């Protein structure tokens, strides 16, 4: 038998098989099933099965994040229906309005662990590759089917290996690397594949930077993405598991309170799955960090990527910092460093939405929120904000937005007649200050 990719090992585990071949269709049992504001619609599908109880309440995680707090009565009814369902079904892992974006919250809560399978009714479920899990997006009917049966068919995907060597230069971020990769190979460059990230450049990244890469692979067409969990990863998860030790006992069948963080780390590492050195890859791509620069995705496609300098000077009316891609503390820190002591340009709205309440609290403690407010920025409730055009910063027709989000499709933020540019947090902040797209390094940021 030839070497196995991460995807093969993860899906074999989830299907209870010794090994699986690429292309094989398996019935997999996910460890976590995620849904968000779409839970009410999923419940209506599930009701058609005539069940009184979902079969996997302990594996369901629900976060209200896509339109929070409710902007209309209809959204509020939707949330109310979800709360009732959560109560009826005894779902413990429910996160209310304001806690944050599902992928960030489930990461902070250490609900997904290395080697596990998470399926979610959200395309950015690829996110959980940052911690060495297999995350994939599915549809609403599929989540309903999982609630009813606990399993779902998945085809074992081909894998692409992406190697980043060397540390990213100052001013160049994981977002820039993701944009470069998507720009080079196209929005379908990783279509259907499992994207494995390797190399010293990935190892050198902070965990928050690593989170950007699997998250953005949804825009690459990928089924899932993976980064090797290391001591940084297991420390993050172990400390969080330890904090909520008692409620976690059921998951591992042993008491956490007696375990040291280092013992928990060893336990997490033993769950991790690593590809074999001789695994089969459909493609391998090498990048050198030193060759990368700040990039920007221009309207109306995420693979319409150019070096930032190519569109410098383009006027914007709105700047948006946030989302599951770039709404974390590190992102707010980078933006605050640019904006501190400056003012948002006249004619520009700068909207800052932390990815979670934990990020918001930390940003308050660090003084970043103060920096933003003093500069004239608007702070929003942790959640997805205007990313998919629901509320809290819909552009007017004819306006341009620069955003730290992941998608710039026509109409994405609510109107087909506006333009969206995607860039890293520091570029978003610098552009808010300048009123035109600018490299923060050029304004002394």
């Amino acid at each position, binding site marked *: 038998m030839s070497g196995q990719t991460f995807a093969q090992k993860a899906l074999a585990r989830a299907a209870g098989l010794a090994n699986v071949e690429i292309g094989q269709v398996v019935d997999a049992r996910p460890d976590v099933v995620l849904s968000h504001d779409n839970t009410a*619609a999923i419940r209506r599908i599930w009701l058609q099965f005539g069940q009184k109880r979902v079969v996997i309440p302990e594996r369901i995680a629900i976060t209200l994040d896509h339109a929070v707090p409710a902007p209309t009565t209809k959204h509020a009814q939707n949330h109310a229906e979800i709360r009732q369902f959560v109560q009826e079904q005894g779902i413990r892992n429910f996160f209310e309005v304001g806690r944050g974006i599902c992928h960030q919250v489930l990461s902070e809560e250490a609900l997904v662990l290395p080697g596990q399978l998470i399926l979610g009714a959200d395309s950015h479920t690829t996110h959980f590759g940052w911690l060495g899990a297999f995350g994939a997006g599915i549809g609403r009917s*599929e989540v309903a089917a999982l609630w009813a049966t606990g399993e779902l068919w998945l085809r074992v995907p081909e894998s692409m290996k992406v190697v980043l060597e060397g540390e990213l230069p100052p001013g160049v971020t994981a977002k820039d690397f993701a944009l470069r990769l998507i720009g080079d190979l196209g929005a379908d460059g990783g279509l259907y594949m499992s994207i494995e990230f390797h190399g010293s450049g990935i190892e050198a990244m902070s965990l928050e930077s690593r989170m950007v890469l699997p998250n953005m692979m949804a825009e690459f067409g990928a089924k899932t993405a993976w980064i090797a969990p290391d001591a940084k990863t297991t420390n993050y998860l172990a400390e969080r598991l330890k904090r909520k030790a008692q409620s976690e006992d059921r998951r591992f069948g042993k008491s956490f309170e007696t375990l040291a963080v280092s013992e928990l780390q060893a336990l997490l590492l033993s769950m991790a799955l690593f590809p074999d050195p001789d695994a089969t890859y459909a493609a391998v791509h090498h990048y050198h960090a030193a060759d990368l620069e700040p990039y920007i995705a221009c309207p109306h496609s995420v693979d319409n990527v150019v070096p930032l300098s190519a569109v410098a000077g383009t006027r914007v009316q709105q700047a948006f910092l946030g989302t599951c891609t770039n709404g974390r503390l590190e992102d707010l820190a980078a933006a605050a460093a640019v904006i501190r002591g400056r003012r948002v340009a006249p004619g520009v709205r700068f909207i800052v939405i932390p990815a979670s309440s934990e990020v918001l609290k930390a940003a308050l403690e660090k003084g970043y929120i103060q920096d933003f407010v003093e500069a004239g920025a608007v702070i929003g409730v942790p959640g997805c904000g205007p990313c998919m055009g629901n509320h809290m910063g819909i552009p007017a027709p004819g306006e341009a937005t620069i955003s730290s989000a992941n998608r710039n499709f026509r109409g994405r933020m609510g109107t087909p007649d506006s333009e969206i540019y995607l860039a890293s947090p520091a570029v978003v902040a610098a552009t808010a200050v300048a009123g035109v797209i600018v490299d923060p390094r050029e304004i002394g940021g």
Partner: protein
Amino acid sequence: MRITGRAWKYGDNINTDVIFPGKYTYTVTEREEIARHALEDLDPTFAANVRPGDVIVGGRNFGCGSSREQAATCLVYNGVGAVIAVSFSRIFYRNALNNGLLAIVCPAAVEAIQPGEQVTIDTEQRVIRCTAGEFPFPPLSPSVMGIVEAGGLVEYVKRKLATT
């Protein structure tokens, strides 16, 4: 099964935001209303003029973007018979099959089919017919075919639950 209708032909990377805008995902819930917004930001003439059996022809990566299932159901509710594309984004592909909407990968047919012309799909012979000729397409994997044959995932799961 035989599907006959006119071809609505579009390009590469037709994303879910132009198929069914995100701003409607939690507020538009009725079938007729979902149908009315189909392809709203791509082709505003579509929803008013599409007829049952019509076929959508797309290029590469059809349905990329969000996991929203309405991107598939808004087409189903309009009676769209099938989507033929060079390639599909994986979640759209699953959503289509799970709702009984045929999603056929056939690059040769995509190239040959002219906008507005009549297209026939014969699912038993697995062939697409248009003015330019006949184009065969590959079978679905047996386990997935079971879902399509049941009429979609909900029916499939109902049957499964009834037998266990």
